[in-house]
């Protein structure tokens, strides 16, 4: 199963490092990553593979939200299907 991780917030040092370490601990593989500064905000979107993950998607979403609050970023993890469904026929 694949999911999309989005990270939005004020730019600072070490965001990618913190998040990729967090994901690696959960055996989550990053398939694709894109990062930019949009309207002065750090915006990163990752496509990740959860097939070997040691955590359920619903729990991961919760944990990422907590991590986001800790490091002052807004982090979402969502099943990729929601985006495919909403934006393509």
């Amino acid at each position: 199963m694949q999911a999309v991780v989005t990270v939005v917030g004020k730019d600072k040092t070490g965001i990618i490092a913190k998040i990729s370490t967090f994901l690696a601990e959960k055996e989550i593989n990053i398939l694709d990553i894109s990062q930019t500064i949009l309207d002065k905000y750090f915006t990163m979107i990752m496509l990740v593979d959860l097939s070997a993950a040691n955590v359920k998607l619903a729990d991961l979403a919760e944990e990422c939200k907590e991590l986001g609050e800790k490091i002052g970023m807004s982090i979402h993890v969502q099943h990729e299907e929601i985006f495919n469904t909403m934006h393509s026929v």
Partner: protein
Amino acid sequence: MLKRNEILETIEMVEKEHLDIRTITMGISLLPYIRATAKETAQAVYDAVCKKAENIVKVAEDLSKEYGIPIVNKRVSVTPVSLICAPFPEQAGLIGKQLDRAAETLGIDFLGGYSALVHKSTADYEKKFLLTIPEVLATTQKLCSSVNVGSSKSGINMDAVKLMGEVVKMTAEATKDKDGFGCAKLVVFCNAVEDNPFMAGAFHGVGESDTVINCGVSGPGVVQHAIEAVPDSDLADLAETIKRTAFKITRAGQLIAKEASNRLNAKFGIVDLSLAPTPARGDSVAQILEAMGLESVGTHGTTACLAMLNDAVKKGGVMASSRVGGLSGAFIPVSEDIGMIEAAERGDICLDKLEAMTAVCSVGLDMIAIPGKTSASTISAIIADEAAIGMINNKTTAVRVIPVPGKDVGQEVNFGGLLGRAPIMPVHDKSSDKFISRGGLIPAPIHSNKN
């Protein structure tokens, strides 16, 4: 490959524009659980509902986290209870109370189906059942009741209309310590649909499978935002914008409904494309109409704007879902929509305008507080007017009015939560007594003869 702007758009819809799945409703047939006595039936019904819907809350919460879209309500609808208790209608309350207990046990928000279908005539057992409604709604918390009093095919059962005016009054009186709150759980329909996931009017039709998942999407805020993004476009382009937005919202609903039905071992029923407001600012149908160019909802042009909105939502939604059903349109409840509440407080919207609006959208006169002194026959006449609009136009219409005991125009009622607050709106003071006391049937219109 996923596009960045699409991902961010979805997140923005949820974070800033109140995109949500308004309800996942499990429809359960109670027909297999009729037993020899009311007591045994009530127990069998309680056990069946608790078993079939035991995971609905957990599954909805999981889905909400996994897909990142809030699912606001978890509900159950059941076969109209008047059918289950036809052999012992006076004891229908036993079943109602067990259903309410089941809703409490499951942790769901509402359970609908304390209902009767009397659109052609009122059988003796139905009449006895209808008279149990006030007491049952006064002694239960989560149980909702609906009664179908007319249809395009059968006409309007004016005996039932008369009785329901009285039942609404009795329900208000039985819950007078809570400002007539019981009436917020009671809706009178014409052309009721059998797969509606929304409350208070949800029930599980007899033509349905044994366990079904119906899903109601929402998202007035998303539509409002999309309209505000094109301030100078003409109405044809605006309709197109609404259609595209409705498509995206409905796709989310379709995905969640399918996944929910898989996980809950139920059939996928329908997606209901209704725009359902909440009292939160930015989650309002009235504000959509205002974004279209009206100074206030209720002014001239409101009906036209609403007609276009309702149609565009359907067109976008139908393309997005494999099965569309329920009520599917824009809801215009007064107390549940901040734009409506404020317009009513300013005196910019009145009951007559709301009635006109119901001719072009789903569903009807919804969550409207009226003076407690309003007579039963006036309430019956309000129901008759709505039913006539539904019957002639082949659409669902409904009345959910609250005659607030002891309160009058100029005062306000507050039900809290999603049910919101409403100023008491005036009704006409001339009598409809003679008309209502005639009883009988308003015959079905000529265009119902299609065979």
